[in-house]
């Protein structure tokens, strides 16, 4: 019982630590965390709307509503390879569930994402739209799905990286690749018919489509919601199993 309380506090204190270090208690920290996805949205807007003249309404809003949740996933995953290495001195001395460390990273990025939702609202208003009442259940639901999925990926990468130390480079490449294969800067409806089935093989695709549907239309497509949920469960289980099998050796190889 006391032990569980300690683990819970560990999770809270470590997440707070990350947030405090990032924000150093000032507003600039917040601006930095939304500057990155905004800058990307700007670049894609210039490239596709201004230069290539893609035929889409509200393209800036469209970009923002996909890039913000993606940013959460991408940040957590690219940070994963170093999370255990960065806490080597603790892992070698103290016996606690090591999985707490990557979880704090994922939670921290989730909080950044939640804090960036007002920016999406701002863009909705600029485009003469309004947030929907369905956000009240849609956002928590998708948060949970993405939390599971991201944590699963993070567990896989952080655990394996201790045994193969160059996973870091591979991760960056794969995240970039996955970004362009996921309908974020283009709508899934523009994907040519014969490649459409391939989208279903990408675990991030249904989730990103769901986020966008929720933000832009205030609705969730049950098939996409269901498949993103199944993917998140599968990936989380996969990550947990790998972590369980390797975690007792962490202190040996650090």
């Amino acid at each position, binding site marked *: 019982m006391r032990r569980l309380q300690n683990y819970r506090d*560990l999770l809270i204190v470590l997440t707070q630590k990350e947030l*405090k270090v990032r924000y150093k208690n000032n507003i600039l920290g917040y601006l930095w965390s939304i500057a990155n996805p905004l800058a990307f949205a700007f670049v894609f807007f210039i490239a596709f709307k201004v230069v290539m003249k893609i035929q889409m309404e509200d393209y800036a809003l469209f970009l923002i509503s996909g890039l913000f949740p993606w940013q959460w996933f991408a940040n957590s995953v690219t940070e994963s390879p170093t999370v255990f290495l960065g806490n080597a*001195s603790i892992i070698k001395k103290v*016996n606690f569930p090591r999985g707490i460390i990557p979880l704090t990273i994922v939670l921290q990025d989730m909080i950044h994402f939640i804090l960036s939702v007002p920016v999406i609202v701002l863009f909705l208003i600029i485009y003469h739209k309004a947030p929907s009442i369905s956000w009240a259940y849609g956002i928590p639901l998708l948060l949970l799905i993405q939390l599971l999925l991201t944590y699963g990926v993070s567990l896989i990468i952080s655990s394996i990286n201790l045994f193969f*130390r160059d996973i870091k480079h591979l991760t960056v490449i794969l995240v970039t690749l996955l970004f362009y294969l996921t309908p974020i800067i283009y709508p899934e409806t523009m994907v040519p018919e014969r490649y459409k089935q391939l989208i279903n093989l990408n675990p991030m695709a249904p989730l990103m489509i769901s986020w966008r549907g929720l933000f832009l239309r205030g609705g969730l497509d049950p098939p996409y919601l269901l498949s993103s949920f199944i993917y998140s469960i599968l990936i989380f289980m996969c990550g947990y199993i790998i972590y369980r099998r390797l975690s007792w050796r962490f202190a*040996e190889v650090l």
Partner: protein
Amino acid sequence: MSEKAIVFDRVSKSYPRYHQIMGIKNFLFHLPTAIRSLKNARYEVLNGISFEVYRGESFGIIGRNGVGKSTTLGLIAGVLRPDSGRVIVNGRISPLLELGGGFHPELTGRENIILNGVLLGMTRAEVLKRMDEIIEFSELGEFIDQPLRTYSSGMYARLGFSVIAHLDPEILLIDEVLAVGDIGFQKKCLDKMLGFKRMGVTIVFVSHSMGDIEKICDRVMWLEDKRVREVNESKKVITDYINR
């Protein structure tokens, strides 16, 4: 004799060789050799060691560098698993982290006390309850609200030891950390450890300082060549060790 706090029963421990921890690129390019080396290449640090530590006892571990002292502590803390044999521990373990371990340089001393205390197994409420005592013990004064990057290494050590001094440990693991801080604070640490001893805390103490070992420990184990060379009362083992 009294109750046993720690029992090592023919414990062996080996580590993977360093070249095993390579990149995935190397692994794939040298697949057959790589798989073979995964299975074989481990080097042994401890070979079937057995010893017991009794409750309330202060137990020292000495030996040359790389002989397995820290590995033994890791096995007691449960962060390492033995290859064979059994490690039995009765009681809550508090490891004293190395200098700066479990601290973050950007957080203030106060914030780091909470972080460190929780890492060492306390709940947040427990740390907060003892906050004033901890700060007073550390003698850090107004520095306590400054970020840790402004601290000297001696001040780091003060903060670390102050947290552990207020832990209510049952079994305290100390790995060569007293040799920092000024003489005044070192003496205070030593006094605190002797205080723990009087309170009946089991202490396992790894050090190269025979003076500290002799002051604190009731019995000492001398590790050599993967095995226990000698376990006996402190004076005897230290004399043998020095005259080896």
